[in-house]
């Protein structure tokens, strides 16, 4: 793996591991003799549940299908296969389930290789030390972190840069599974492993992280990027898809605060002065990206449990009730509180959240058209409480209050709400929230991300 090839070809299979991709596109990629194939596995986008609960975003079946194709392609062609942010959230349980799948596929197909597992879940003792040493700081308007925030977290991961992947490549690992990382990290590592400088390596990684999100028409499909000393070239592997200067520029808008400045561990990628040109009607070349080094920091991501939730869905078609829905819901809140108190519970033990669909259920306080006159509205009544039992009890009282309360001008005394389900109340279990918007200053990018190596498959 020590060739000094300055044109490096890298493939990304799809936006997230388990989203699926056409097998023909993988085969087309392999015909191009790529230096690696890989896929990003995660995102904070689906919310805090996955990091908090340790569950994977996509199903084991779907991840296995994707990993099986990628693994067999990589081993057959003698190239590395890398997965970033395994299992959706990149914590220890997420990494382990992907490792299990790899071992299973290897066994089924008689494959043998060296595998690296890069751990991203952080030890609370280590984080407390760093906090006390003043190495942990908030980003933007985030509050200062306190020791109890770290102690109370369900799970905290660091977002690794490319360095641990580079180390694993240097150690000869062919299959590298990473815990939580910055999305471009695996590809940046591979490109830099082959001597590509930071700026094009990071730009290439950014192109590849969401695969054919950089192409049109939008599909979950494979992207090939060729990167050199001073350029990045992107093309989709499915002949039905095209990269155009516009589609490539649009990828820079995706899920980023800025399309031209991107903060990464150890530096900032600037693309203000990029030139984006069509090589063919399906291939785009980008030049002029810059990398400005900065002190090395690792972003932290954490989830804490905020309680247990239960909810119910109901709807009203009564114009009299819809016309006074706010005062009615105020009454429901008060009346529920009285009934909950009668159970010997305090109002601190639960929160009742009422979302009004058909009015401002989607945008809440940001809804610009508050005066619209819907003919029906749906309510989702949710209770978050300190225990599931309290959540269930308070929701039950809120539900019956919604159904059977008088209001001025009430015409149907049999009930105010249409419930679509029996049972009406749904337990949601433990729920979580993201609790970190902080970085940690660290001298050695490897210290927070220990790597384990194993030989998978039959001994050679």
């Amino acid at each position, binding site marked *: 793996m020590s060739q000094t090839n300055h044109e490096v070809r890298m493939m990304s299979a799809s936006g997230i591991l388990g989203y699926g991709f056409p097998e023909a596109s993988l085969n087309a990629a392999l015909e191009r003799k790529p230096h690696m194939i890989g896929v990003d596995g995660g995102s*904070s986008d689906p*919310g805090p*549940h996955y990091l908090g609960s340790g569950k994977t975003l996509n199903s084991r079946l779907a991840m296995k299908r994707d990993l099986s194709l990628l693994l067999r392609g990589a081993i057959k062609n003698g190239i590395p296969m890398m997965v970033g942010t395994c299992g959706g959230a990149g914590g220890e349980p997420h990494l382990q389930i992907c490792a299990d799948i790899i071992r299973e596929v290897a066994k089924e197909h008689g494959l043998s290789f060296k595998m690296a597992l890069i751990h991203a879940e952080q030890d609370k003792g280590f984080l407390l030390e760093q906090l006390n040493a003043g190495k942990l700081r908030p980003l933007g308007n985030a509050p200062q972190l306190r020791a109890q925030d770290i102690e109370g977290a369900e799970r905290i991961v660091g977002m690794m840069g490319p360095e641990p992947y580079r180390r694993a490549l240097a150690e000869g690992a062919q299959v590298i599974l990473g815990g939580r990382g910055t999305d471009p990290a695996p590809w940046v590592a591979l490109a830099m492993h082959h001597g590509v400088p930071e700026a094009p390596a990071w730009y290439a990684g950014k192109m590849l992280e969401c695969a054919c999100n950089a192409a049109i028409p939008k599909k979950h499909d494979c992207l090939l990027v060729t990167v050199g000393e001073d350029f990045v070239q992107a093309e989709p592997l499915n002949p039905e898809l095209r990269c155009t200067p*516009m589609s490539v520029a*649009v990828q820079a*808008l995706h899920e980023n605060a800025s399309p031209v400045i991107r903060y990464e561990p150890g530096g900032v990628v600037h693309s203000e002065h990029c030139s984006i040109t069509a090589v063919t009607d399906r291939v785009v070349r980008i030049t002029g990206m810059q990398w400005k080094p900065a002190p090395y920091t690792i972003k932290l991501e954490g989830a804490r449990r905020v309680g247990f939730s239960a909810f119910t869905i109901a709807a009203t078609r009564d114009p009299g009730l819809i016309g006074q829905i706010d005062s009615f819901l105020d009454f429901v809140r008060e009346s529920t509180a009285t009934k909950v108190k009668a159970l010997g519970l305090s109002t601190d033990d639960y929160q009742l959240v009422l*979302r009004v669909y058909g009015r401002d259920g989607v*945008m*809440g306080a940001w809804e610009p058209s508050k005066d619209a006159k819907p003919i029906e509205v749906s309510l989702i009544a949710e209770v978050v409480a300190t225990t599931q039992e309290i959540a269930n009890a308070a929701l039950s009282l809120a539900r019956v209050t919604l159904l059977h309360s008088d209001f001025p001008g009430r015409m149907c005394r049999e009930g105010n709400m249409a419930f679509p389900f029996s049972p009406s109340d749904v337990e949601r279990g433990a729920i979580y929230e993201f609790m970190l918007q902080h970085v940690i200053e660290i001298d050695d990018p490897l210290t927070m991300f220990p790597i384990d190596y194993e030989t998978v498959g039959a001994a050679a």
Partner: protein
Amino acid sequence: MTRLKDIAKACKSKNAGPFHITLDIMFDDPKLFERVRATGVIRAELIAQLYGVPAESVQFTEYPPALAWKATIARRIPSGAIGDTDIYGAQQHAPLLDIEVPIQAS
């Protein structure tokens, strides 16, 4: 006056991490993009007004390579926290649609 929804190719919203929403306004016709740009209507202050946030808290970028504007603001409620209504942040774009642009639709 023309409304943005009648001339833009896309007006969209999406999470930029769990604590921010990013709003994109995109065109597919360079000439039309330049005409809208020349009006000076699309700027940080307008986004601030539409979403009821301070103008200085809007991170705003004009991005000609994609014929686009991008604005990033703090979420009302972090993604998935109690009371959130839009985990992916993909349905917070509606106020952009009715932006009035002082040009004649051709």
